[in-house]
């Protein structure tokens, strides 16, 4: 499987600078880059000089608006060219979105195309955040809030321009998405080994990476009942975890995901988790969804630690932890009641 990563971030947040530096790094050779630029005359692709083993292809138009067919066709095309030896045998793909893009439809396209699913595995969403202007951007631009909310990794850029600290920005980012890892890059300089290593495809392949992918402990029913709501303009964005000591029946999990899609739809920005499925106690399931689209569960060979609790991490808009708790409780009870019927 070829890992495919999404690099996004608001306009001017340093995506292209970061990518240009990465592509000059020997460890990042053999990379295919798809750059999406908004507007007929793009510039970003001219700012990137790939190595001989990498190449850049360009898409215009807003990727998240025309995404399904366009991105799938572009990916299929570069895979075909790779197979036929027309381009270097790249080992990874990076999709750089326009700064205005909503990442969710892009993730849907990657997850839901059967042809692509045979060859590609999502290697994570990296979001650049301007250390100087990021706080203001988050306050003004809802697109930037959504980008941060779905990130696996956040890269703080332009830290060299900071006059004070970034504490307030970091607190805001943590409130929006406490599960995301935060890295720093000055002039786009960052160790490639630190990037694109936190995605669901990566985590599903390595049990030890699951805890990292799920992020730090979040408020659960053991500790809080109101989730982790980001303050100020982002009060609608909530991030919380649901924990279960007892295994969850497979049918209960399916019903839960159906109900979440049904009632939350686009407001479910991201759901990821590790689940102790009653029918498979030794092999936990890793689940990952964006809005109503979910990957099939990935079954780990073993538990990554002695902790065998199910852990579901939610990032959503206006989704209440208490509702999800009540929903799961009732679904578990009803499935149990039906199963116990003679």
């Amino acid at each position, binding site marked *: 499987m070829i890992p495919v990563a999404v690099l996004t971030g608001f306009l001017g947040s340093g995506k292209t600078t970061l990518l240009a530096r990465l592509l000059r790094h020997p460890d990042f050779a053999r990379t295919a880059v798809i750059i999406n630029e908004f507007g007929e005359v793009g510039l970003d692709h001219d700012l990137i000089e790939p190595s001989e083993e990498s190449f850049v292809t360009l898409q215009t138009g807003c990727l998240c608006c025309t995404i399904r067919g366009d991105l799938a066709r572009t990916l299929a095309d570069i895979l075909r060219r790779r197979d036929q030896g027309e381009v270097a045998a790249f080992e990874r793909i990076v999709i750089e979105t326009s700064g205005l893009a909503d990442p969710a439809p892009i993730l849907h396209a990657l997850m839901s195309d059967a042809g692509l*699913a045979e060859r590609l595995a999502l290697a994570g969403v990296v979001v650049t955040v301007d250390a100087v202007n990021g706080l203001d951007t988050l306050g003004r631009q809802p697109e930037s809030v959504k980008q941060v909310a779905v990130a696996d990794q956040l890269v703080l850029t332009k830290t060299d321009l900071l006059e004070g600290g970034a504490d307030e920005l970091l607190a805001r980012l943590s409130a929006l998405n406490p599960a995301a890892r935060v890295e720093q890059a000055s002039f786009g300089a960052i160790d490639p080994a630190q990037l694109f290593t936190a995605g669901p495809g990566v985590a599903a392949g390595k049990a030890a990476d699951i805890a990292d992918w799920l992020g730090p402990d979040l408020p659960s029913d053991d500790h809080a009942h109101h989730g982790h709501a980001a303050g100020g303009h982002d009060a609608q964005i909530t991030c919380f975890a649901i924990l279960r000591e007892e295994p969850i029946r497979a049918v209960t999990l399916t*019903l839960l995901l159906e109900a979440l899609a*049904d009632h939350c739809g*686009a407001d479910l920005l991201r759901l990821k988790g590790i689940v102790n499925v009653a029918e498979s106690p030794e092999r936990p399931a890793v689940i990952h969804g964006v809005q109503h*689209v979910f*990957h099939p569960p990935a079954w780990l060979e073993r538990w990554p630690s002695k902790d065998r609790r199910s852990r579901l991490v939610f990032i959503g808009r206006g989704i209440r932890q208490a*509702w999800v708790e009540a929903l799961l409780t009732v679904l578990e*009870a009803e499935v149990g*009641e039906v199963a116990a019927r003679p």
Partner: protein
Amino acid sequence: MSPSMLDEAVAVLLARSLETWRIDGSVRREVDGTLHVTTAAKHLRVSRAPADLPFRWMLGEGERTRGATSISSLLRHVRAAVDPGYRPVRLRIAPLPPPGAS
């Protein structure tokens, strides 16, 4: 969980659901277990389905009663009744990679 505890849990779920859907309303449970969901525009009754019907729950509105085969189905019917803007979204599972793909 006993049947009465499940009924109580359903009452809690319906109350939380109204909050999540941003619908002003309330949920009240009668001694016989019937739940009353009241909003500005609607009054719904939720009860266990009789054993001779192929449903688990019944949802009543005025003279009209309909069955629901599960909590998920009940929740959809309740939302459709109280939330005119409700457009259910179907869960979509991405395709599986072929066996051996790595």
